[in-house]
């Protein structure tokens, strides 16, 4: 029985949470059926982690750098990159549904529009959880230190789920408007620019020139600080709340963007 039939032929269409869960489950089953749609979300961050920590091993010797362990520096960044790919991947599933007409069937059903979007976001969060587990495991196996202990890993997890949600909403907003997988390049450019115009490569104290004010103002830098704090030192509220506020603010803006995009799908 398909997820759509489970959700809509058996009377759950009036229950938004059940609809969201059924659609999220359908998306996750798709990973097992077509692993190629999800594998890059894990392989790319792991490659990024190995390549950057090997290539830029020397940067931790720059005076003022926040750690002397390059894997501790890059593991949280790689996790966030994986989380963003996870969120974006779910939106690409929606793009496929739009191309095949399945999404039109969803819109014709009595399911709440919000529940349909939540289904995608739930699937993105679940995918983000998988990338968090795998990429963190690779980082720790390679020698990343977590002086912040379990709270440090929890703050990384929260940052990862937040980034998966924000990236998913950004991608959904574009996919709803462009209505095809050709939205991919625009989505990816937005993600890369958002993630890298930050303290992704070096701490603010080390960055020079035009990037310094950009990274200082980019709210994603605050999310990176939330993610990294446990890998650099202990977890502190002063490093936590700006990250949480940045996730909340960005999610709110992207939610408006996605909801308005969804409205363009219905007359």
């Amino acid at each position, binding site marked *: 029985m398909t997820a759509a039939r489970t959700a809509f032929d058996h009377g759950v269409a009036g229950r938004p949470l059940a609809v969201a869960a059924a659609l999220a489950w359908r998306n996750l089953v798709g990973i097992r059926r077509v692993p190629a749609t999800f594998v890059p979300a894990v392989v790319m961050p792991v*490659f990024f982690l190995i390549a950057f920590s*090997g*290539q830029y091993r020397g*940067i931790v010797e720059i005076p003022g750098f926040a750690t002397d362990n390059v894997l501790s520096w890059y593991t949280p960044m790689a996790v966030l990159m994986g989380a963003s790919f996870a969120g974006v991947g779910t939106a690409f599933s929606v793009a496929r549904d739009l191309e095949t007409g399945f999404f039109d069937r969803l819109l014709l059903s009595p399911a709440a529009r919000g529940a349909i979007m939540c289904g995608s976001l739930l699937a993105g969060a679940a995918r983000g959880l998988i990338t968090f587990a795998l990429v963190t495991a690779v980082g720790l196996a390679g020698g990343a230190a977590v002086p912040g202990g379990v709270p440090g890993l929890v703050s990384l997890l929260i940052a990862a789920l937040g980034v998966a949600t924000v990236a998913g909403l950004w991608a959904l907003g574009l996919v709803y408007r462009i209505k095809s997988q050709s939205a991919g390049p625009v989505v990816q450019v937005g993600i890369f620019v958002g993630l*890298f115009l930050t303290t992704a*490569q070096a701490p603010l104290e080390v960055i020079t020139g035009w990037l310094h004010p950009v990274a200082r103002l980019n709210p994603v830098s605050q999310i990176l600080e939330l993610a990294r704090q446990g890998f650099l030192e202990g977890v502190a509220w002063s490093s936590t709340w700006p990250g949480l506020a940045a996730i909340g603010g960005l999610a709110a803006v992207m939610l408006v963007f996605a909801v308005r995009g969804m409205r363009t799908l219905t007359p």
Partner: protein
Amino acid sequence: MTTVALLRAHRRQPLLQALVLSRRSVVALLRQPTVWIPSMFFPLFFTALNSAAFQRATNLPGFPPFDSFLDFLVPATILQGVIFGAISAGTEMATDIENGFFDRLISSPVSRISILVGRLAGAAALGGAQAVLFVLILLPFGASIGGGAVTVAVLVATAMLLGVGIGGFGVALALRTGSAEAVQGSFPLLFVTLFLSSAFFPRGLMTGWYQTVAGVNPVSWMIEAQRRLLLEGFAATDAAVAVAVAAGIGVVSVGASLLALRRRLAEAPA
């Protein structure tokens, strides 16, 4: 006049046929900004980013005596752009196979070698144009080119040869698989080769297995020779190393694409 009609008009003139097919691949490239814009944007973006993020690394003991990280990154910027752009030679060849144009070509009296030359000439032209554009764009931002025009000429020649080399791998894969998706899928492998080299950071500041792998990667030899040219001015040895590595990659990949072409022609219905 269509390409196939032009090829028929130039039967028994392989050079003219290669020229017609080269022109077709260059025009096709120019008509698809989605192919060449990312090949310019991403290398420039990461160069701008890393030159601001890692400028202070130039003061580290063991870092080559460059004034700025931007100077250090010039060869890597060109190489990234060439990788991004040249793979399109393979995807275009695969698209020709998928949409039947390749079958029409081989049923016409066209020289088989011209088919390859046409595709790879497009990749070489794009590589050379990218090298010139990158230098022109980076100069106003403070990049300095030791050795001046002669060094730029070496950079352009290397980029053209690399365009052939990387495009050749794409074309070989396209001829073997007939799938544009498979060619695109090989793209990360090229980036692995790039990252497992000293393209973005000096080898002396790496450690362990990564340093060992970067040391035996010919891409490191080429990039380091180009950097010495930029830093110390023209030297025939460095120019020869840079060009030889790019030419070596080209020889291997063109050989692979010739074998793949022979195999595809052998499998084609008579």
